[in-house]
């Protein structure tokens, strides 16, 4: 870890301007991703801009849906009655994440920007294309048990976002509000926010260096209300997903009217399964339908030595999640 200076921003403009003027600075919210990576010297920032004083707070219903301030804490969001009742998959994705202590610290904006748990990325003694572009990807032939099988490239097979919340957000067509140093805001849907690794795995999102995440807005739908987040992991709690599924269904008279499906733990980024959704809509809500959709969802998967199990596990997880939502 290197020495750094620290400032506290009272206004968004101060934060974004400071970041624009210092290429090596970073925003800090809960610090649960950032400080870890700094202690490992994976990230080396000479300045930290504390954004916790910014007014990016609040959990409220708006005409566009549920709006959550980027600085709200994971634990507070999960416990909020609106979230628990109207967006069960969001609440579950938060509650099944990390530990109680981490959820108390971690912010929603920081969560969306958490970084991969690839062991090579997190140890500077290894080459890693994401951390050190062009140095190589030892995970291709090494420890890839928990890395991705969809959307990967020969340059990087990491689950660039290893967490849970964004899987739920991407399933529900959530939209991020961003603000830059000019004070200009823009709306970016989660489905357009994350970048696939291609030949530039160091580029992970469309966020510009001087941009802050202000809030996330989740459209209020029947599928959000009738939804589930199912997470499979190596231990019963406090572990990243091996695979996870975020699903929402609208079923009328036994027929699926609309569906939302996303997978975690398998994609280079949170993985929205548009094709699987198409395979569900108009079909009877039966296990056979779910199984067929699950197969579609994993089509094109490119497993490696240690993560081949994820194909079947992800399919089974998806079928299980869909069955449970349909039965609920």
């Amino acid at each position, binding site marked *: *870890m*290197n*020495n750094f200076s620290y400032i506290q921003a009272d206004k968004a403009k101060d934060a974004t301007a400071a970041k624009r003027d210092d290429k090596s600075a970073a925003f800090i919210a809960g610090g649960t991703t950032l400080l870890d990576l700094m202690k*490992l*010297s994976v990230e080396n920032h000479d300045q930290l801009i504390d954004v916790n004083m910014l007014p990016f707070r609040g959990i409220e219903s708006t005409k566009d849906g549920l709006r959550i301030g980027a600085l709200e804490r994971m634990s507070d969001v999960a416990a909020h009655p609106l979230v628990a009742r109207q967006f069960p998959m969001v609440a579950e994705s938060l509650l099944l994440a990390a530990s109680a202590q981490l959820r108390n610290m971690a912010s929603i904006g920081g969560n969306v920007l958490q970084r991969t*748990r690839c*062991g*090579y990325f*997190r*140890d*500077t*003694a*290894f080459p890693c294309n994401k951390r050190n572009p062009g140095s190589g990807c*030892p995970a291709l*032939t*090494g*420890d890839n*048990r*928990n890395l991705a099988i969809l959307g990967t490239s020969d340059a990087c097979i990491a689950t660039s976002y290893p967490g849970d919340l964004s899987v739920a957000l991407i399933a529900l067509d959530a939209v991020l509000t961003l603000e830059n140093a000019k004070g200009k805001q823009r709306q970016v849907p989660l489905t357009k926010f994350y970048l696939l690794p291609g030949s530039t795995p160091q580029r992970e999102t469309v966020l510009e260096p001087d941009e802050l995440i202000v809030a996330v807005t989740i459209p209020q739908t029947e599928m959000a209300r009738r939804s589930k987040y199912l997470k*499979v*992991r*190596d*231990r*019963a*709690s*406090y*572990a*990243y997903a*091996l695979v996870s599924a975020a699903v929402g269904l609208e079923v009328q008279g036994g027929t699926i009217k609309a569906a939302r499906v996303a997978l975690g733990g398998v994609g280079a980024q949170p993985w929205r399964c548009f094709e699987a959704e198409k395979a569900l809509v108009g079909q009877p809500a039966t296990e056979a339908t779910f199984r067929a959709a699950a197969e579609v969802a994993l089509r094109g998967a490119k497993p490696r030595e*240690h993560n081949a*199990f994820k194909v*079947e*596990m992800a399919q*089974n*997880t998806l*079928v*299980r999640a869909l069955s449970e939502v349909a039965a609920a």
Partner: protein
Amino acid sequence: MEIKEKENAPTNIVGKPLNRVDGPAKVTGAARYSAEVPLAGTVYGVLKTSAIAKGRIKSIDTSRAEKEPGVLHIFTYQNLPKPAKTPQQVEKWRAAQSYLPMQDDRVQYAGEPVVLVVADTLERATQAAELVQVSYQAELPIDSYLDPKAELFDPQTIQSGKQPGHTERGNPQAAYAGAPVKLDATYVHAINHHNPMEPAATLAVWEGNDRLTVYETTQNITGSQTALLDVLGLPRDQVRVVTHYLGGGFGCKGSVWPHTLITALAARAVGRPLKVVLTRKQMFTGVGHREDQEQNLKLGATTDGKLLALVHTKKATTSPWDNYTESNSKVINMLYACPSFGATYELARANVMTSVWMRAPGEAPGSFALESSMDDLAHQLNIDPLEIRLRNYADHDYSNDKPWSSKSLKQCYARGAELFGWDKRNPTPGQTRRGRLLVGHGMGTATYPVHSAQGTARVRLFADGHAVVQSGATDLGTGTYTVMTQVSADALGLPPDKIRFELGDTRLPTAPGSGGSQAAGTVASAIMEAAQDVWAKVVKMAVADKKSPLYKAKPADVKVELGRMFLAKKPAKGETLVAALARSGQTDIEGSASGKYGAGYEKQYFEAADSDDKKGGNPNQEKPGEKQGQGHSMHSFGAHFCEVEVDPELGTIRVTRWVGVHGVGTVLNLKTATSQLMGGAIFGIGSALMEETFRDPTYARYTNSDLASYHVPVNADIPDMTIEFVPETDPYINALGVKGIGEIGIVGVAAAVANAVFNATGRRMRSLPMTPDKMLEALRLPA
């Protein structure tokens, strides 16, 4: 052999679930762990470790780091003060690893110390370490015994010479070949790391050039002292090692590791107290691990399930210098009534640090193989798993042909089965469902040997009715302070709050380390003996004191129980030790003695009996009159019963019920003992279901060295557990009949879980940990 049993010492507070006497100090922060000892002028060392696993250091550029404020010293192989002897030059090096890094430009494993930066604050040292540039000439490392470049060899002896590498009893190959029922299975065990909560730390303080005090995180202060004085070339009394509190160790703090030796060497040059604490990441390459290994077990039996042969081979990774591997075969050799047995080891050198004992080293993985194969045998022959164990019940130790000193395994089986409801188990695998989940029941046998050890203690009884009891033992956090307070209280007849028990300092009487489950038995024994020294002195005073009810009695006729002296034939006639002492005008009286545990205790007991020795200073010593025999085989035994739920689509395995029943001799404290056995089982569940360190095959470097990716059980993984003890008296172990309990709890656990998984699914899991990916793969294949 006719042996009249000697009774264990009477108890009053011993056995009670007394709260931890060090609890308040710990929860208020008053308890200082080694890294927290406040010493004026302390400076901070940060280790920079090697980025490669094999090769040479080309250059080390310290120029930027040196300019940083607060930086005092930067040590590399070029300027670290030379040891008087390197571990490899020490004739009898007792620590696990015989290689000391930072002696030349070679690098032999990933994460070995390369640079030590010393600064006035931890932050400055950390920053400066970051700025030191090390460039390497890397060579292709060997990562494990599975590496195509690795060469397996026959080590002849293992555990660095302490154990034979071959064992043979009867004619195992022929017996196996001729057996009507044969099983042949291979078991794989992942690399495990101990990961105690408290990281390893060394705080080294020199007085001049020839006196050193080290505040150390060690389970064995005397072992650390020995290694330090060997390396520093000092006489024993000039190196003091202090460990007042430990936050766990599980074996990784039982040995001296490079960071301690390097810190001690560097501190002499620094001239101020120097503190080095390993980071969590450094804990994965700084203090050993349980090695990656596979075992093949061939089991021959009769058609009614009686064992005829067990043939065991083990392959494992070891370091470039040491032949360390856990001796898995010992438990396989002794657990059952099997007439023939064979074991061999094959090791391969790789670029890894020397592995080291980890909770039940050998017994834990060995029992996984044995108890899984026994379950296979039971299933194949359609015999209940408990019944197959009873059919092979060893009425004596077949590995050495000795009688047991005590064995309550049948009672453990029976009580465990009753508590668990074993009779309700469905013997047909894959038949029991709970919703979507498959439910299975399994069991496994636990055992752990009583090692032979000795240690000393000093008891100082004050006339005002309190006592200070001292022994250079350590408390891993498991309760040594507490149980020794109880033992002392009973020995002196004082309430526990009138006892202060001191440990963890080489200035105190020497005691063995907390390892091999021997500390409690040995130190308790030493305290009893030292208390008897006090008794003898006070009895002598009393019989010469006109005011004593024992005036003119023969010392040999006086008995002492719970602090009260009385005539053996007329118990009403007597008084307390403290009363006699107070009357004497003496402020206090001191006794000290060496106490033994295990075979040594038994031998001493026989010898005392033989020599008709009355000077022994032990008024309670009866004259048993039996001959010195061949001695006994000494073990604790127990049984685990486990229920699991397996999700057949997702592959997850959860333990949902646990019953453990153990026979461990005298239980010194029901609460701490229960916690030990429970903790052992949880440790075993960890190794069974989730613990695994991944070493990259190309770089021979770990990829998951943190506690987010090295999974140990969390609360949600562990159900309510039932732990019970069966009453057991063992007269041959030590004065109190105490057997060790630190390790038995994990033995047989992984097998119990795997056996339950088999019962749930019909799939035999032979590779640990049994993670969901492996379970799914097994379920895909036909049963």
